[in-house]
């Protein structure tokens, strides 16, 4: 029985709340996993271009974080995840998804291999229940450390320089998906070269007590590198440009699905490359093998849509006007000057040469217009610069 103090507040502040609140000039907030976080700070365009042009900082403390330790930690994660977790060496991070028995995606996230038998799993959704049941028969300990760890995404071409300025020497040599630790204010600052923007960028992880000193040091170090806080709207554009999917938008976490058949498999989210059938048993393997054999129901595609009207919530039609899919996320991408959508297509649609149209509605001064805009399937994300991968990272 817990006698910890009750807290009836409907939303909680993140560890960075005092700084974030002071900078949030739009007073435009939303609730992310029970925490107050800004949609915007000042102007979406400025925030977006901070990430693409200098350094944007996003408070990702509400991200769910689990610490997984114990002699079976690796074997456990390997059974949960569709990819071969054994290939993620200590000091590395791996992107992965995990599935139900039926091969439907619970969520995607990143695994941090911190040390031997010591991992962190970061995800959008909570999944302790699933991890708990998955741990039957394994000697592991799983601890939810979401509240105890403050996290910032520091993204953009001057992000490396900013961090170097902050005293993280050698940070430029950190490879994509690498992890390094640095002393900070008597604590340990964990830095991973990861992000949700598809650009050069880092994520910073630190004990929640150290959140404000970290913020201050980071912004002091980045002032001349044009650092700027960004809200979720700007990040949302960046992730669509980079072709990243998001739980709750591009798919529904499988165990939250109420209507039979609405969940999606990794194949149906374009993540076939993650699935490793040769690594031995993992949850969903039987079902995914069957799907591979018998075919998927949906195909996930990145669409380049003609015109400049964002295709949010659009149906995708064939040339006869029949519905063949729908858009899950869409944005006008300011860097690429492209109109991009992520879409779930009914099989077999979404092939390179398919003739497809997005049905877009927009309103100008109470006047609604319906557009049928031609769509083209893109093989790659519209934003994917070489600096994203270059090591040592350059100061651009």
């Amino acid at each position: 029985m817990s006698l910890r103090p009750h807290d009836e507040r409907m939303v909680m502040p993140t560890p960075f709340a005092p700084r974030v609140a002071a900078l949030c000039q739009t007073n435009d907030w939303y609730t992310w996993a029970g925490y107050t976080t800004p949609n915007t700070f000042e102007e979406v365009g400025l925030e977006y271009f901070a990430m693409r042009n200098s350094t944007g900082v996003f408070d990702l403390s509400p991200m769910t974080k689990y610490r997984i330790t114990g002699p079976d930690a690796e074997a456990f994660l390997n059974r949960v995840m569709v990819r071969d977790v054994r290939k993620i060496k200590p000091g590395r991070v791996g992107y992965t998804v995990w599935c139900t028995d039926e091969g439907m995606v619970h969520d995607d996230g990143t695994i941090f291999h911190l040390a031997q038998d010591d991992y962190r799993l970061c995800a959008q959704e909570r999944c302790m229940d699933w991890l708990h049941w998955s741990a039957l028969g394994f000697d592991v300990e799983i601890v939810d450390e979401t509240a105890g760890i403050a996290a910032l995404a520091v993204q953009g071409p001057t992000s490396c320089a900013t961090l170097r300025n902050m005293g993280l020497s050698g940070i430029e040599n950190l490879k994509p998906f690498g992890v390094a630790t640095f002393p900070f204010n008597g604590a340990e600052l964990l830095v991973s070269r990861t992000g949700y923007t598809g650009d050069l960028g880092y994520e910073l992880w630190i004990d929640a007590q150290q959140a404000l000193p970290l913020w201050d040091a980071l912004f002091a170090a980045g002032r001349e590198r044009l650092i700027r806080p960004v809200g979720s709207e700007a990040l949302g554009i960046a992730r669509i440009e980079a072709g990243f999917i998001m739980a709750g938008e591009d798919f529904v976490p499988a165990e939250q699905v109420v209507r039979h058949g609405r969940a999606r498999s990794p194949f149906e989210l374009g993540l076939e490359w993650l699935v490793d059938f040769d690594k031995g048993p993992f949850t969903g393997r039987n079902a995914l093998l069957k799907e591979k054999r018998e075919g998927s129901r949906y195909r996930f595609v990145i669409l380049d849509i003609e015109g400049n009207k964002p295709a949010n919530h659009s149906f995708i039609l064939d040339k006869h006007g029949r519905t063949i899919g729908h858009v899950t996320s869409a944005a006008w991408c300011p860097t690429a000057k492209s109109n991009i959508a992520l879409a779930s297509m009914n099989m077999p649609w979404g092939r390179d040469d398919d003739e497809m149209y997005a049905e877009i509605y927009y309103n100008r001064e109470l006047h609604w217009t319906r557009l049928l805009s031609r769509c083209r399937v893109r093989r790659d994300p519209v934003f994917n610069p070489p600096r994203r991968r270059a090591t040592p990272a350059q100061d651009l």
Partner: protein
Amino acid sequence: MTDKRFDTIIIGAGHNGLVCAAYLAKAGRKVLVLEAASQPGGAAATREFHPGFRVSSGAHLLTQLNPGVAKDLGLASHGLDYAARDLKTVALAEDGAHLVIDGGSVSGVSGNDAVAYAKFHSQNRRFGKVLDGFFSRRQPTLVDRSWDDAFSLLKLGWSLKRLGKEDMQDLMRVGLINIYDVANEHFDSELLKAAVAMDGVLGSHMGPRSPNTVYGYLHRHIADAWGNSGPALVRGGMGAVGQAFAEAARGFGAEIRCDSKVARVEMQGCHATGVTLESGETLFADTIVSNADPKTTFEKLVGYPNLDAGFSRRVHNFRSRGVSAKLHLALDTLPDFRGLDAALAGQRLLLAPTMDHIERAFNHAKYGEYSRAPVMEISIPSVHDDSLTPAGKHVLSAIVQFAPYALREGWDSGKEVFKRIALEQLERYAPGINNRVLASELSTPVDLEREFGMAGGHWHHGEIALDQALLMRPMPGAHQYRTPIPGLYLCGAGSHPGGGIMGLAGRNAAEAVIKHRKDREERAA
């Protein structure tokens, strides 16, 4: 593997494992049965618990043996010899006003009750015939069904419709409700109601008022539909049944190796390819059939890491909370049940005065306590079978409920107290019996688990509740004798239609294995 001598390994020589082995061997497969104990039979066992006194240490009456299985296996020619058949059931009254149930007739009650019982019995036989259709085949899946399944469904649907409107309406209702209400609807005699209720709750973590106990009753009385009017006693105890099954399996060419406890199922990639014994020896076969209960099979032999997490969760949540203890008494003379004609002493004796009494006895089990006034099913097989005891002596075997597996105080300290309580309860009905006890033994569910390897000491390998019955048994994902592990099958009481020395789970499993293999070969060809 080309050098392996067996194409099928069966884990456990319980009766279902042996039945499965027999049918598979009969179909031409090379079958090896591996048994942990030093003799085959599983819970169909006879054990000397006191010098010169032998008792059926697990099941003690042969109630539900399927005649088709018995015939196919030729059990009679393999040494199955009945000491007594069609036993009557005597519902003991403390004051000696017992009543006797013999098939559909009951004596010692009012005329109304006698008529009501005959009616009740014949309707249950009709229900039993329908249930027989369900029990004797693999349960169909309902959505992604094959032609086979569709045909099964049609046949089952037809057998329901053929019951006639009124019976069908009754079955739809009673199938889900409790035996308490049904007995109250039919009978006036408390003793008769209690006797009926006992058949709904024997071996179950349920009291008469628990919904689903009518299903438990029908399950137990399935043999009525096969023409039995009561349980049977086998000469030499239930161990002789186990031996007969083993001989039958051997007769078809199956090999049985005792003292060979399987430690784990071997996997190659994600397929079951063999088993490793505790001795360290590994044996290979392309088909592995487990007669162990589902929890033991998946948790211990396969291991959760080899299974999907959702399925592991289902296994973990499978309920097998044994509540039955076995009491064995070596007796100097035949006990004297007050008012009981000595000629009836060898029948099936029930010690349960009222349904409320049973319910109160069950109440304790819910909270992890043993009953303060337990109920019993008693058999004194030595009345019919002098091979069990020294001349003139007797052996009494009783199922005593309720004795929950997870006793809160622990069985180390609880066992002696509960045995004393059981003996005191017997004393009330058979004054002086305690003075005639030469030796006594109580096997708690924990002991039964240890002796027979049944998780939770549950003789059905898992609760016979509707959510774990029929097409849901034991759990979605393993409900057609197949498991999520290619090459691994289930054939034990944990599978449909459950335990009770019926043999149907073993037979249905063998059919499923044969059919599945055939389908695969056809697909490959």
